[in-house]
C-alpha cells in the first residue's frame, strides 16, 4: 500500500493535446495551399453548364471575369429580375447592351497587364446555362470590337460513362 494516494484518482485521465496544434497547422497549410482568395462578390446567380472537354485556366493574372445571370435576391429588389452583366466585381445596371462599359472594362483590364501579356488576356465568360444566346452574342460582339479575342466559356467538368460517349 502506497503512502501517498492521488486525490480523485478515479477520474478519467486527461487526453494529451500537445499534438493538437500540429494537426491544426497541417489543416491550415492544406487550406492555404489548396484554395484561392475570394476576390469578388458575385451579385448574379450563375450556374455554369457542364462539359466534357474543359481545361483548367492556367494563368489567373491574365483572366478577367464576365458574369451573366439573373440577380440574386437583394440585388433584384433594386434592379429587377432581368438578366444582368457583372464585370469582375462591378454590376452593370444599364439596360440593353453595355457596349461602352464592356469597352472600358477591356481597356482597363488590359492596362493592368504587363506589356508582354497584353495580347494574352483571357475573358472568362461565366454565364448561367438558362440565359438566352442573344445577350451572350451581344457580349461576344462587344469583345470582338474591343479586340479581346481569347474567351473561355466557363463550365464544370462532366464525367460521362463510356457507353454514352461513343
Amino acid at each position: 500500500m502506497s503512502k501517498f494516494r492521488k486525490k480523485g484518482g478515479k477520474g478519467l485521465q486527461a487526453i494529451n493535446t500537445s499534438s493538437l496544434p500540429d494537426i491544426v497547422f497541417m489543416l491550415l497549410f492544406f487550406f492555404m495551399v489548396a484554395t484561392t482568395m475570394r476576390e469578388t462578390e458575385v451579385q448574379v446567380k450563375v450556374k455554369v453548364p457542364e462539359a466534357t472537354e474543359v481545361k483548367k485556366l492556367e494563368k489567373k493574372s491574365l483572366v478577367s471575369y464576365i458574369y451573366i445571370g439573373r440577380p440574386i435576391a437583394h440585388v433584384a429588389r433594386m434592379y429587377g429580375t432581368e438578366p444582368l452583366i457583372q464585370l469582375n466585381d462591378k454590376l452593370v445596371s444599364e439596360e440593353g447592351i453595355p457596349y461602352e462599359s464592356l469597352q472600358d472594362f477591356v481597356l482597363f483590364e488590359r492596362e493592368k497587364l504587363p506589356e508582354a501579356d497584353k495580347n494574352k488576356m483571357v475573358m472568362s465568360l461565366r454565364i448561367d446555362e438558362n440565359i438566352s444566346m442573344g445577350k451572350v452574342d451581344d457580349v461576344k460582339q462587344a469583345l470582338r470590337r474591343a479586340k479581346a479575342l481569347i474567351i473561355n466559356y466557363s463550365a464544370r467538368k462532366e464525367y460521362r460513362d463510356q457507353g454514352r460517349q461513343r
Partner: protein
Amino acid sequence: MARSTPEVNGGSLADIAFLLLIFFLVTTTMDTDTGITRLLPPEPDPEQEDVEVKVNQRNVLVVLLNRSDLLMVGGEVMDRLALKDKTVEFFTNPLNKQDLPVMEDTEIQFPPGSSSLLPPNGMWTGKVSKGVISLQNDRSTTYGKYLQVQNELVAAVNTLRNDFCRLYFDKEYEELNTANPIEEEIQTGIRKRYKMNISESEPKNIGGRN
C-alpha cells in the same frame, strides 16, 4: 550553472491555429476555373466590303440551333450525342464520299526522329480535310444548349488529335508539354493535321417554331 528557461505554455497554440484555419476557410474558395477556351474571329474591317466567300458546299457542315433548342446538322434533325461522330466523319471522310469535304495533300513538319512511323526527317505527308463547321444559333437559344454543342464539336477534334498523337508519338495529346520545344512542335503539327475549323456566323435570327 545555467538555469533552463521555463517552458513556454503551448496550450493556446491550438486556439490560435484554429482561428487562422477558420479565417482561411471563410475567405478562400476552392473552385478551380475550368472551361472551354475559344478564339473569337477578329472584327471585320469596316472599309472592307462584304465579300461572299465562295466555299465549296461539300466543305461546309452547317450546325443550326434554333430557338426551341433543336439541333439540325447538315440539313437533318439530330440528337446532340450523335453530333460528335458526325463531326469526326466530316473531318476525316473515311470513305472518300463526294458530299464530304475535299481532302488535300499536305506536308507537315514534325521534329526529326520523334516517331518511328515518320521518315527520319520528320515530314508527315497525307490528306488534310478542308472542312469547316459553321455553327449558327438563334438569339433565343439557351446558352447551356449552345455550349453543349460547342463541347461536342471540340470533343470531336480533340478525339482525332488524340488518336493521331497516340498512334505516332505514343502519348496523350493533352499531356504534351508546351514548355518542351520538341513537344510544342509536335502539338503545332497536330493542330495543322486536324484544324479546329469552327466558324461562328454573325448573330442573326434563325427562327424556328415558337
